[in-house]
């Protein structure tokens, strides 16, 4: 996507920084197998700024900051620290150069105290060689005082709520003299109140001249807490903004792109008051930490309808889908889900839900939708391995499995060397068509589809859209979770928009303009232009163990 000229001040000219950047990533390219995670990315971090790196899941944010922190080495491009070229062979090198990182999953020892966790690896020692615990506690208390990160240095980390543990992580980085603090999705585990406190801490940190790199996909935070923003999409920079001069709307556009090319026009179905094939009512989900992931979500899909779910990644889509498909991890849930009239409980296994008439095309292809090392034929069997049609005289008939695979590959246009080739050898588009072939060929009246065209080429996109339209035409109820607004507009009869775990809009096809969806995605009330309250009563006391 071309970057609007007004938003791309060339870092060295327009910034006109009198001093060199604290750190600079230049032309970073990083490939993981077939996936191009970063493609010629430039990122410049000025001293004393909070620099937000935003983008959808899989946009390459974490890869980029991992390169900055020495966790990965770039295939091309290099890192500058205060204008000097550096090579980080490991995080230890990066730490020595004044970088610090707070990972999404904390790396703390729950059995040790705060002070012990903070000084670990750099402990103050007495002359006898013993660790000077008193000095450690003093140092941690002082540091906490200076940055407004009050934590009891003697407390055991395992006893602390999540938000406080994060403070310990930040203290750990600061104790090692971090001048560039990288935070990867820091608010994912925080309540809104805790997030507020975190942002004020970040301000204290930058006031000392240090810089903060804030990786997030939550736009409200970007607007509230950052000075500048770099937006990534599919491994490339799609926008650079000064926070004060931009809007949530502009950021969303850069994050999600505009439209997919020439999506098939689908005729809106006539309004139908029939019963829902899939109905979710007042669904509230808390994760084991007590954080509310979904708050009172209600939606319904009628037979023959495609109903879209829009939202910035991490707004609760994954939790919603996992609750419907029965793949949810432990946690607390209330509300009801009805599948073709049957109320689903947590005791209903995935197999039972599938038998009732549910098909599912997951977003995470390699992790969930296929077993990459198994053959195409074997991948196409999954879910139907107990079907009578595939039975031979002794168990699963290899001939029937392969014959069916050939027929499906033919019908759905899956191109592969042979049905015995490992699925890992297929292109992204063909792999996705194979998944659709498997799920749509089942006799399932309800189909949940997540990001069906992510990472596939344009030709496959069209084919996939046509397949979904056809499935709806045949009377199936389709729930389409997508961050591609163009896709939703082309296919969906109605669109629900999720923001921070709640539905902020339900738009009929003709109302679902990019502007309205975009506004709801950022939690902005279209009427007032003000940010809506995020999902409210969250952790209570924030206690719980991860």
């Amino acid at each position: 996507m071309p970057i609007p000229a007004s938003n791309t001040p060339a870092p060295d000219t327009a910034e006109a920084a009198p001093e060199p950047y604290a750190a600079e990533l230049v032309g970073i390219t990083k490939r993981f197998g077939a996936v191009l995670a970063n493609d010629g990315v430039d990122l410049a971090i000025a001293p004393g700024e909070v620099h937000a790196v935003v983008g959808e899941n899989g946009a390459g944010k974490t890869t980029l900051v991992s390169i900055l922190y020495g966790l990965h080495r770039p295939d091309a491009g290099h890192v500058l620290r205060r204008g000097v070229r550096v090579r980080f062979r490991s995080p230890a090198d990066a730490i020595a150069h004044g970088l610090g990182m707070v990972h999404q999953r904390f790396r703390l020892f729950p059995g040790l105290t705060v002070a012990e966790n903070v000084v670990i690896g750099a402990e103050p020692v007495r002359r006898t060689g013993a660790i000077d615990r008193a000095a450690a506690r003093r140092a941690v208390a002082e540091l906490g005082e200076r940055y407004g990160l009050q934590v009891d240095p003697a407390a055991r980390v395992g006893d602390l709520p999540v938000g406080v543990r994060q403070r310990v992580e930040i203290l750990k980085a600061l104790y090692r003299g971090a001048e560039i603090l990288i935070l990867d999705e820091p608010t994912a585990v925080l309540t809104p109140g805790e997030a507020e406190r975190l942002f004020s801490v970040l301000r204290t940190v930058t006031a000392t001249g240090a810089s903060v790199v804030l990786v997030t996909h939550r736009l409200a935070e970007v607007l509230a807490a950052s000075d500048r923003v770099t937006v990534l999409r599919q491994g490339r920079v799609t926008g650079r903004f000064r926070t004060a001069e931009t809007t949530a709307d502009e950021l969303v556009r850069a994050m999600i792109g505009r439209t997919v090319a020439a999506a098939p026009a689908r005729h809106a179905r006539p309004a139908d008051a029939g019963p829902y094939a899939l109905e979710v009512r007042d669904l509230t989900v808390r994760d084991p930490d007590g954080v509310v992931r979904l708050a009172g979500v209600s939606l319904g899909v009628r037979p023959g309808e495609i109903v879209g779910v829009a939202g910035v990644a991490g707004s609760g889509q994954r939790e919603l889908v996992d609750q419907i498909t029965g793949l949810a991890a432990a946690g607390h849930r209330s509300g009801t889900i009805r599948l073709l009239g049957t109320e689903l409980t947590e005791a209903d296994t995935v197999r039972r839900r599938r038998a009732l008439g549910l098909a599912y095309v997951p977003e995470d292809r390699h992790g969930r939708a296929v077993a990459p090392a198994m053959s195409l034929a074997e991948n196409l069997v999954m879910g139907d391995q107990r079907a009578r049609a595939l039975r031979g005289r002794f168990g699963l008939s290899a001939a029937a499995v392969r014959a069916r695979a050939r027929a499906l590959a033919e019908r759905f246009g899956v191109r592969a060397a042979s049905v015995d080739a490992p699925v890992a050898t297929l292109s992204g588009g063909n792999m996705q068509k194979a998944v659709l072939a498997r799920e749509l060929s089942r006799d399932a009246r309800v189909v949940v589809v997540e990001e069906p065209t992510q990472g596939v080429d344009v030709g496959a996109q069209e084919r996939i859209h046509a397949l979904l339209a056809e499935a709806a035409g045949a009377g199936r109820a389709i729930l389409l979770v997508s961050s591609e607004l163009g896709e939703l507009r082309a296919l969906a009869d109605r669109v629900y928009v999720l923001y921070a775990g709640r539905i902020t809009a339900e738009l009929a096809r003709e109302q679902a303009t990019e502007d309205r969806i975009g506004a709801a995605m950022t939690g902005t009330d279209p009427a007032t232009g003000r940010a809506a309250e995020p999902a409210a009563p969250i952790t209570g006391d924030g206690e719980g163990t991860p």
Partner: protein
Amino acid sequence: MTAGIRGARRADAPERPPALRAAWERIVAAPGAAPVLAIAGTLVLTTVVLLAAGVSPAEAYPAIVRGAVGEGNLEYTVANLVPTLGMALAFAIPFRAGEFNLGGDGQLALGGIAAAWLALAVPLPGGLAVAAPLAAAALAGALLAGVAAPLRTRLGIPAIVSTLLLSTPAVAFASYLVRFPLGEQGTGIAQTPPLPEAAHLPALGGSGHVTLAVPLVLALTAAWAYADARTVLGYEVRATGANREFARYGGVAVDRLATATLALGGACAGLVGGLIVLGPPYRFVDGALTAPGHTFTGIAAVLLAAGRPAAVPVTVALLTVLHVGGEGMEREIGVPSSLTQVVEGLVIVLVAAFATLRGLRDRGNGTATAGEVGA
């Protein structure tokens, strides 16, 4: 696999010249390359070890071959194949589902003592005198291994850890039983009294080494290979091993399946214990089951075969020949047979290195699978 951390470290590995690297990757990626390369590597390693010990390979190899398949030795080799193949199954069955059973020794010992106890305590008529102790042995092994599954699903203790840690107490428990409640009085040797004649495994052939155990274990191996390739259960097991989340998504009850494969593996190990006890010298002798190291030879064979059912008997045979032949070599040319154990250890290292290289090739696509660990 801790893909993140290890992937990160790999990324720091020194770069290889591209042409060499490409050629290597082509070889590694070829289908069936892993077992062939691993077996070739085993023979190269054996040669290196022999040379390092100052033994002429030209002398040692014939001695090994004579020791394994020469006159009068073949029967002994075949008899030795049984426990190793059985222990290979004990590891391989859960391995296909992505679970690691390292507790073979404990399951073996518990199975052996269960068989001995039943045969001594309850005299049974006819075929039952053999069948019932074997069933008890399998049950004991299955229960011990099966414990690992709830430990993992409820408490998050990996099976690889719990099976290994439960093994030593189980061996010690069997040892206690044979020293005190079940021991032969007055001999001062930690062994049970001899089992009643009815409970002896029927011998096939003259020497008594080859018993019913041989066809039994071969049949089990064939049944496993068939189930793995052709049944719904085998498919679900392989899918679980290849990508657990994929199997769960497809409606496979992965936790139950993991429990079942662990229990089945344990049953195989227990059965081997029973077969040893019901064979010559027809009693449970403390330490006699675990001392020959069938458990880890079996694991080495499975890793060498990358878990493929068709390849497992081949690698078991290879290692057994090395083992038994090594003893022949010791007798014939005075080279300690522990050299073959050195080779076995190196094989495991080689296979692990191979898995790491393959992981290096696949890094970043987040699809490390149990199959690849052994590949």
